[in-house]
């Protein structure tokens, strides 16, 4: 299990244990945000790979 999976699982456990509705919403939003960051990282990594492999940049 990588760190992200661990964090999300812990957040889900906190979510289940919370007795406060707004706090539950916050914990869920934190998990959603971490997933969104991961997607954004993958997109930027893809863009970087594409840039590095672009023939237009080979001369540089």
């Amino acid at each position, binding site marked *: 299990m990588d*760190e992200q999976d661990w964090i999300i699982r812990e957040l889900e456990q906190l979510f289940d244990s919370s007795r406060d509705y707004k706090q539950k919403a916050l914990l869920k939003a934190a998990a959603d945000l971490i997933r*969104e960051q991961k997607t954004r*990282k993958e997109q930027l990594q893809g863009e970087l790979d594409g840039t590095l492999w672009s023939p237009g940049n080979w001369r540089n």
Partner: protein
Amino acid sequence: MKTLVIISHPSIDESGSQQFLIQALSDRSLEQVTLHPLEKTYPDGVIDVKHEQELLKSHDRIIFQFPFYWYSSPPLLKHWQDEVLTEHFAFGYRGDKLKDKELGLVLSIGLSEKEYQTGGQEGYSISELTKPFQAVARKTGMTYLKPLSIFQYAYMSEEERMGLLIRYQQYLTLKKPDSLKPREEWIIAALKETATETLRTDHSDFIIEQVIEHIEDNRMELDELRMHIDNYHE
């Protein structure tokens, strides 16, 4: 930034969605936000224009929050606009008191989102139907924000409602409510303040710290990736 939420609803106490939104605000958000229910303030419909204009002047972001009835607002909000947005205040000679403020809409809508497009049951998009509000923003020199449209609140799942609760708070308090970075900062600040007494796990403090650190690490990686990409394009 201070936000004024002007709510117009003929029976706000009986409205599930309006009550949900009012309750959604945390103490932290309320430091920045003034809720202003029009029908409760002016049950006789007589508006204190001076007071309203002072309220507008002392806030940076103005939100009209209402159920989208017949493609417009309930009548008191229209009346409010007629009375309060006067010449020499909101427009015309020296009428620059709203200039550079922001105008946003929080709409509760009875049909689903897909009906608001050409070929859908309503035939027109929310952007088309809210043109009069966009024109008000334009004429008064305000920046019009993308609206927060809540479609079919009654049919939303609990998870969707929790998402709405956060989006609503961010819509009222964040400079750029759509961007990832400000939302990260918002979540981190809220996590730092959340009370651990309502959590039943003993190591909840530690977990919250780890979550904050993880979000911050991700942000560093994102900024680094962005920097590398920008370097290649220079």
